[in-house]
């Protein structure tokens, strides 16, 4: 549903400006499950869900458990000519370090483990506070960090990379997927649900409302 209104445009608290074209919209009258997008350029503005923070809490807890599983079990093993080699998820980053590429190792580790893990922990912290309806002085810096880091998490990209490597080496030898592989697959799904479920405008409106109580 597209919402446009000229009348209430002078109350900035219930208005949003489209991040792509700067047109102003009143989004105060969204009903449960409704999405507002810009009528001029089509950019997504916000989605209102009455139970949004509870949903995010459920997704984020699942994602955290799955990430812990993914880091503690073998990811894949590779067998050829009677020899076997096994990898874990953190080794994707640490082996690059051993081959003398500390910068690349740092980037890979950050994009696939540390940034997603940090985002999930921060979202859990934030959402627990928002669901319980209490305001804390650390809510703003935590939410700022979440939205700043979001661009730099590449869990889903990594998983497509895993599939590509599987096809690349599948004919050379036997590749066995471990617990961590399936856990990370599920993690990237739940992580995407968590991040896309935490609507930017709704989340900040809630933080602001709590601090004004």
């Amino acid at each position, binding site marked *: 549903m597209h919402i446009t209104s000229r009348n209430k445009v002078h109350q900035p608290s219930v208005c949003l400006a489209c991040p792509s074209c700067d047109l102003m919209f009143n989004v105060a009258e969204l009903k449960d499950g409704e999405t507002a997008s810009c009528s001029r350029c089509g950019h997504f503005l916000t989605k209102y869900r009455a139970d949004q923070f509870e949903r995010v809490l459920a997704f984020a807890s699942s994602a955290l458990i799955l990430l812990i599983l993914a880091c503690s079990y073998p990811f894949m093993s590779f067998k050829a000519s009677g020899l076997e080699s096994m990898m874990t998820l953190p080794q994707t980053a640490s082996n690059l370090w051993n081959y003398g590429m500390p910068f690349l190792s740092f980037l890979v580790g950050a994009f696939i483990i540390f940034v997603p893990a940090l985002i999930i922990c921060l979202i859990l912290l934030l959402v627990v506070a928002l669901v319980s309806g209490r305001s804390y002085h650390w809510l703003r810096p935590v939410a700022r960090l979440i939205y700043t880091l979001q661009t730099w998490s590449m869990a889903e990209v990594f998983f497509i990379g895993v599939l*590509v490597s599987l096809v690349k080496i599948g004919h050379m030898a036997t590749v066995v997927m471990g617990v961590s592989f399936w856990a990370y697959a599920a993690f990237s799904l739940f992580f995407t649900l968590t991040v896309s479920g935490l609507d930017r405008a709704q989340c900040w409106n809630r933080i602001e409302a709590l601090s004004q109580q």
Partner: protein
Amino acid sequence: MSDLPDEAQLTAASLNFASCHLCLKLVHVDQHFCTRCGSTMHLRKTRSIERTLALLFTACVVYIPANILPIMITDQLGQPIESTIIGGVVLLINMDSIAIAAVIFFASVMIPVSKLAMMFYLCWSVHMGPPATVRQRTVLYRITEFIGKWSMIDVFVVAILVALINLSNLLVIRPGAAAVAFAGVVIISMLAAESFDPRLMWDQRENNNE
């Protein structure tokens, strides 16, 4: 869809409001910091086109070593074989893995190159582009923004193969210098997309209308 014509609608800037890039709060243009989240406020991203162009040129320069240097070194029975990005695609085609060659070619050649070309076009179009296409150009910008991080697939494939394939003496895969350069291209072009401000295109159209 809206029943109001575009001309009847107001932009935040025309009412002296700036939209916070982080929390979307509308703050009066006199404020230097967002009253809700504390971020630094700008009506439009600072020196958007200059920054974007500078990052785009950097990405183009870094893209050269990313293609010339080897991205991966395969040691088979002590014999090192170096492969470049294009070399890897050719090898896959020779092995009849056309589908996977297409994915790699798309992710590591087509996407970075077309993304850079699209961003150059967008920068040029802010002042010179036809006003009628501003909506299409906004969509184009959102596509470049979205596909940016998917080019990292190639770097991740190298990281996975290096970690997984380590059969002492028989078969070892080592990372090559191009992996770092390629990761650099992806990150720099992501930063370029982030520093571009699509609202400038709409501002330009409004100025032309007046």
